């Protein structure tokens, strides 16, 4: 049985114009999200995970700042990159919506939260203000805000961080979108609040059969929430795998390194943590061959001169590495150096 594809990104490139020339923040990124699936995008700062998600909604200034290449196919028919400005505005919030890391800066401080949710509803649906407000109360109730009929009249500053993120989720769900993009929605929250928000997103995903793209740097969150994961490094996808293969059978040396460098709750405390040597190079100075080669313990001449493609290696897993098979066999060695 083939699950239905909700969104398919094909060879997406996002170029930014800067003072010093063109910078390609997202370079040849292809992936898809199925209906009702939670896809994780993982990577460290500067890997292009947020730019990818914002490119899907075309949030950057296309006149002066950014140039897109590739295709973003929604529901097997529409190419989002070919839509006009007005059509794109119709799709945003209605078909695809987004929540951000910092809810306070995404909410308007001088309008009540009820009005802001109702506004989203009125923009896309032909409803009266009263109906929209009633719907806003329902959305707040759905996201677990206590006494929502009172809370609709609150301003963002009157709410805590967790509550604000619930309001953002309520707003993004108001028009029943098919796809929710969540860009580090729990990074600014405390762990006990984070677990509440993760439960909420999982619940919404199941209840409305809604596709979710969840962007995070936290592998623990990925393990709890996601069905499938793409790992990004320096503007490219280096590995794609389902959640079990990602943790139990990682193929790319970067993925392996990431998983091993986090401290575990049951790890040996006397042992040193695994380290990925060096730092991420800048986008203006991308290595010629494999982008991870300068930090990779397995890199050879081929890696330094030729850039590998993302290729399938069975079981739905894809990897961008010349030597993935050989490295996978050398499991013991990798662990020995950690």
């Amino acid at each position, binding site marked *: 049985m083939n699950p239905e594809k909700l969104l398919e990104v094909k060879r997406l490139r996002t170029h930014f114009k800067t003072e010093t020339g063109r910078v390609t923040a997202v370079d040849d990124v292809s992936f898809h999200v199925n209906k009702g699936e939670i896809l994780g995008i993982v990577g*460290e*700062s500067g890997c292009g995970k947020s730019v990818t998600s914002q490119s899907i909604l075309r949030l950057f200034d296309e006149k002066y700042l950014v140039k897109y290449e590739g295709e973003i196919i929604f529901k097997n028919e529409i190419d989002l990159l070919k839509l006009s400005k007005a059509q794109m505005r119709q799709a945003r919030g209605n078909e695809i919506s987004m929540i951000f890391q910092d809810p306070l800066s995404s909410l308007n401080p001088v309008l009540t939260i009820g009005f802001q949710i109702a506004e989203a509803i009125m923009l896309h649906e032909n409803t009266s203000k009263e109906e929209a407000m009633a719907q806003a109360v329902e959305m707040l109730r759905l996201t677990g805000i206590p006494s929502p009929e009172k809370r609709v009249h609150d301003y963002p500053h009157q709410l*805590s961080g*967790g*509550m604000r993120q619930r309001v953002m989720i309520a707003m993004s769900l108001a028009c029943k979108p098919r796809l929710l993009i969540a860009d580090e929605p729990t990074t600014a929250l*405390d*762990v*006990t*609040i*984070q*677990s*509440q928000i*993760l*439960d909420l997103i999982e619940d919404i995903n199941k209840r409305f059969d809604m596709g979710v793209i969840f962007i995070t*740097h*936290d*592998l*623990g*969150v*990925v*393990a*709890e929430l996601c069905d499938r994961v793409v790992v990004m490094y320096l503007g490219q996808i280096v590995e794609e795998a389902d*959640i*079990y293969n*990602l*943790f139990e059978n990682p193929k790319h040396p970067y993925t392996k*390194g*990431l*998983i091993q*460098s*986090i*401290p*575990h*709750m049951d*790890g040996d*405390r*006397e042992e*040193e*943590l*695994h*380290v*990925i040597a060096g*730092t*991420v190079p800048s986008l203006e100075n991308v290595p010629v061959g494999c982008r991870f080669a300068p930090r990779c313990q397995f890199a050879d001449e081929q890696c330094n001169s030729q850039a590998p493609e993302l290729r399938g290696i069975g079981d739905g897993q894809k990897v961008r590495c010349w030597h993935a098979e050989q490295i996978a066999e050398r499991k013991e060695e990798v662990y020995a150096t950690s």
Partner: protein
Amino acid sequence: MRQAEMAPDRLLKEGARQENVLLDVQGLTKHFPVKGSLDAFNRNRPSVKAVSNVSFQLFEGETFGLVGESGCGKSTTGRTLMRLIEPTEGKAIYRGKNIFEQSSKELRKTREEIQMVFQDPYSSLNPRKRIGSILQEPLIIHSIGKRNEHTDRVMDIMQKVGLLPEQYYRFPHEFSGGQRQRIGLARALIANPKLVICDEPVSALDVSIQSQIINLLKRMQGEFNLTYLFVAHDISVVRHISDRIGVMYLGNMVEVAPTDSLIQNPLHPYTKALLSAVPIPNPRIKRERIALKGEIPSPLNPPAGCVFHTRCPFATDRCKQEVPESREMAPGHTVACHLYD
């Protein structure tokens, strides 16, 4: 450089744990008056109760982790010990002297021995100074060594924390986050301190850089025989680095225990909930989370009795009235909760 005796540091820690108390914090309290309230002369002026009656000890050579969620007072605790913030009440006995009563001259001497590493390495480094002069400053302030030896000492510490000699003349903006944190650590270590207060030193860093800095902190501790007060919100990081952990909630220390004892056998209901909320990077483990209802109450007006009773699943009438005393349940494992009376 003081050469630490080359005893394996694990042995050293074991031995140290029993006797040498380096810092004894007793009843530390910090209330921040709320600005702008009309009744400036009123004695009952409202205040944020950031830290209330917190006591703990730091043993020589150990790492004491302080965890809790935002607003629990863990950073304020760390900062008052350096007197970057003046405490409202309490004592902090360092080598027989109360830091909170020291004159500014005495305090300067103490601050040579107690150093601090901050969360954001960028805003804690002067952007107009080169790394060399940033690192020399502690030597000048504390008149350590001769002037002509300073460059050598700076080079020495740079090499120890993994910076290159040619970076001596660079400015902070030329470094990545991880390297800046190395500079922050070098600046703390160059004065040869006994105690280093680390305030969320790895929170702003990416995972692959975070592990480099954690390893470096551990290595430096062995080399310089340091004691760390490690303040952080990431429990798996704190667990990895600490010998003992204190858990704070709303300005109160609710539980203190040796690391393994705390992780395997948490006693306080808040500690249990906090640990159960930590996401585990293993997709096969689906844990039952202990969901806490509601949010942390305002520290302007903390609940009477046990501060946790408004969210505690086991709260009784007694919890609403009586503040629980800290009691020792196992060696070194203390908890402040009426469930264990």
